[in-house]
């Protein structure tokens, strides 16, 4: 039976069909749904780990223990997991080990657009890259076979368009592979120098064998259409090229993007008068060709940044451009915003009002950087805010007014280590943990602070106050972020204090069950003085009427959080009875 599956759902199906039994991941767009879908299979144990490093280590442990194991993450998550990854390349596996990494060319929801194929090259791990959902499923199976045959973790690379596109996929039954027996083997698994030296030799030999495999691998395929133009591509770029050229080009489709074959590519290039390497982000395949002295066309035509599409290929190669129509006036952009009723809004309103420097982090609250709040000064990576504020205040003590803001899940992910640094090194920093009881931006996943597992079971939850206290923070203040007077007082007192403070701003995300949704509010048009004070909080439900210049509230958006009521000095905003 063929079913329309999201690429990520197809990866999950591939895990199920391959007999995978252990999955540990940290959510990150565009990889998140793999783990959510696989958690629906009773045969597979699946969990959210506190971060990607932990997830990969869990998967390595499960593999050494004999199970087919898996971890998924977004591209920047692989940086966090790079430490175990590089050495797991040396230890190899017992049960098959597959690690999915989802790149985000075009940065639909990421802070950079790094190309994870570089991680595969530097960690010396094989990497496969599917181009649609059907391949997502099949390549997981092939990845497990390669993993066990060549004694190596295997990387599965996705990009946003593959992870988040649906295409028809044939469903098959699960093959139970069981758990292999574990045998003590320190030379393979204990990576002290004496053993690791031996393992590095194994890794280099393995790469040679994998190159040989790549020459004849069934996932590296040639489609010869007797044309002038040859195209070398992998993943979604292959689909774009097919869309652009159809059978007017010949194709070398690389399902395996590391290591790359040599003879297969050289033979392909010899057959066509012009060979284009079409790849998003870095010129990985192109450079491989150039090292071999092959004359290919790549980044001199196609961009290093953003996504490629069929129209771009048609334009750059064939010189064909579609005629398009457009309105002759500027169309206002519609960037993502904090939801009406979002608990983060109150905190950012206060931070803007106080004019403090805000070291931000990764999550919904990064939207605090947008107008009209504009309350963020720096955002780098998961956990940066807590470590960064310490460096920032050390560098500019005269500034004196800076805070870090970080969500509950991000704090557990890698904020806590920065906080230990603050306590240990006697930093006088103010850290605001925005505890909204969920991992919001990636679509509401549970995390160690929520008391619920991925599978929906009740579990213990991290007590943030006790955790902060245990690492040496003595000033800990809990506030409701919608109680803006208290938030303001807490921030002011903490900035004046002689010791570090953690302010826990606690209120559930408005999108989750725990949140209280009330009746929409209305603006009393007689009382409204058009002062626009209510507009300062950047709530998408509030706007100003063009005709009367008075505020109005969109009752389809308002959730009755009453933050705007606190802004209005004229009592014009009230509950609609």
């Amino acid at each position: 039976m063929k079913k329309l599956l999201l690429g990520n759902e197809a990866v999950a199906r591939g895990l199920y069909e391959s007999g995978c039994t252990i999955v540990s991941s940290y959510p990150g767009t565009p990889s998140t749904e793999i783990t959510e879908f696989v958690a629906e299979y009773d045969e597979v144990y699946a969990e959210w780990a506190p971060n990607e490093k932990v997830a990969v280590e869990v998967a390595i442990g499960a593999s050494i223990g004999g199970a087919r194991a898996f971890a998924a993450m977004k591209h920047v998550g692989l940086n966090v997991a790079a430490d175990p990854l590089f050495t797991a390349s040396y230890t190899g596996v017992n049960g098959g080990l597959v690690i999915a990494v989802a790149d985000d060319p075009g940065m639909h929801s990421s802070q950079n657009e790094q190309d994870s194929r570089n991680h595969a090259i530097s960690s010396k791990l094989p990497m496969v890259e599917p181009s649609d959902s059907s391949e997502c499923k099949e390549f997981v199976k092939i990845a497990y076979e390669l993993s066990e045959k060549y004694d190596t973790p295997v990387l599965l690379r996705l990009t946003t368009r593959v992870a988040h596109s649906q295409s028809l996929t044939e469903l098959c039954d699960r093959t139970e592979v069981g758990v292999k027996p574990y045998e003590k083997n320190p030379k393979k698994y204990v990576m002290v120098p004496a053993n690791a030296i031996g393992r590095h030799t194994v890794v280099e030999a393995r790469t040679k064998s994998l190159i040989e495999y790549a020459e004849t691998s069934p996932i590296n395929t040639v489609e010869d259409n007797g044309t002038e133009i040859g195209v070398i591509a992998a993943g979604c770029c292959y689909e774009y090229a097919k869309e652009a050229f159809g059978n007017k080009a010949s194709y070398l489709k690389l399902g395996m993007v590391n290591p790359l074959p040599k003879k297969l590519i050289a033979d392909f290039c010899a057959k066509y008068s012009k060979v284009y390497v079409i790849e998003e982000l870095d010129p990985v395949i192109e450079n491989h060709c150039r090292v071999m002295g092959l004359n290919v066309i790549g980044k001199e035509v196609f961009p290093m940044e953003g996504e490629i599409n069929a129209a771009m290929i048609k334009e750059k190669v064939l010189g064909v451009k579609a005629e398009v129509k457009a309105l002759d006036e500027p169309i206002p952009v519609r960037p993502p915003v904090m939801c009406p009723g979002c608990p983060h809004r109150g905190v950012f309103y206060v931070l803007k009002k106080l004019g403090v420097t805000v070291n931000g982090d990764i999550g919904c609250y990064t939207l605090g950087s947008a107008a009209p709040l504009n309350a963020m000064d720096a955002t780098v990576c998961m956990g940066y805010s807590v470590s960064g504020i310490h460096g920032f205040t050390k560098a500019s003590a005269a500034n004196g007014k800076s805070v870090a803001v970080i969500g509950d899940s991000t704090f557990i992910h890698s904020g806590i280590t920065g906080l230990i640094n603050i306590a240990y090194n006697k930093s006088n920093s103010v850290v605001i943990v925005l505890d909204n009881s969920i991992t919001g931006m990636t679509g509401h996943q549970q995390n160690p602070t929520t008391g619920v597992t991925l599978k929906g079971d009740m579990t213990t939850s991290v007590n943030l106050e006790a955790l902060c206290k245990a690492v040496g923070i003595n000033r800990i203040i809990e506030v409701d972020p919608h109680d803006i007077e208290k938030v303001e007082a807490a921030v002011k007192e903490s900035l004046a204090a002689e010791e570090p403070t953690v302010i826990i701003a606690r209120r559930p995300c408005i999108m989750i069950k725990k949140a209280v949704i009330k009746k929409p509010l209305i603006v009393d048009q007689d009382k409204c003085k058009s002062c626009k004070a209510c507009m300062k909080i950047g709530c998408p439900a509030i706007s100003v009427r063009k005709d009367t210049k008075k505020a109005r509230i969109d009752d389809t958006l308002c959730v009755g959080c009453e933050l705007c009521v606190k802004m209005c000095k004229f009592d014009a905003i009230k509950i609609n009875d």
Partner: protein
Amino acid sequence: MSGNIMIVGVGGQGTLLASRLLGAVLPGMGYDVKISEVHGMSQRGGSVVTYVRYGEKVSSPIIDKGEADFILAFEQLEAARYISYLKPNGKIIMNTQKIDPMPVITGAMDYPENIPEKIKALGIDIIPVDALSMAEESGSAKAVNVVLLGVISKFLGIDTEHFEKAIENTVKPKFIEINKKAYRKGLEYNI
């Protein structure tokens, strides 16, 4: 036959359910289908786009500029934003609802006026539909997506029974009747 449908709207308007319903119907009509959507940031009230492509064999999961047969717009400004994706003889089916984006809310920009008329003046076939009122009459403002699918169904030759089956298999039981009602309203809409 093949087709490219772009579904555009504002995060939270139910565009993903619309593409899911089309995805439940089109393969049964014998088509290869690809649907591409972007999750994450776009859900937070931002501009959202879903591409639905069907035909004998579909390669690219996305629709390029000048390639859409239909744009199913859930909001006026979003229709205006994506008209460059329309084929020369493509159609826009547009919910007449307006939702102010942040630059308009903050007063930095104005919401463009008379969008349907301006689109029509470009020689584009546009069908404005007050889908919000029709959805409310059906029992839920959230059924805007299904009203619009009702309107586009006649152009795609979708069988009503087949679509209603998809509703039954896709939405929660308590919303099935509302959605069927909304779908019929869209189908009966007099263009």
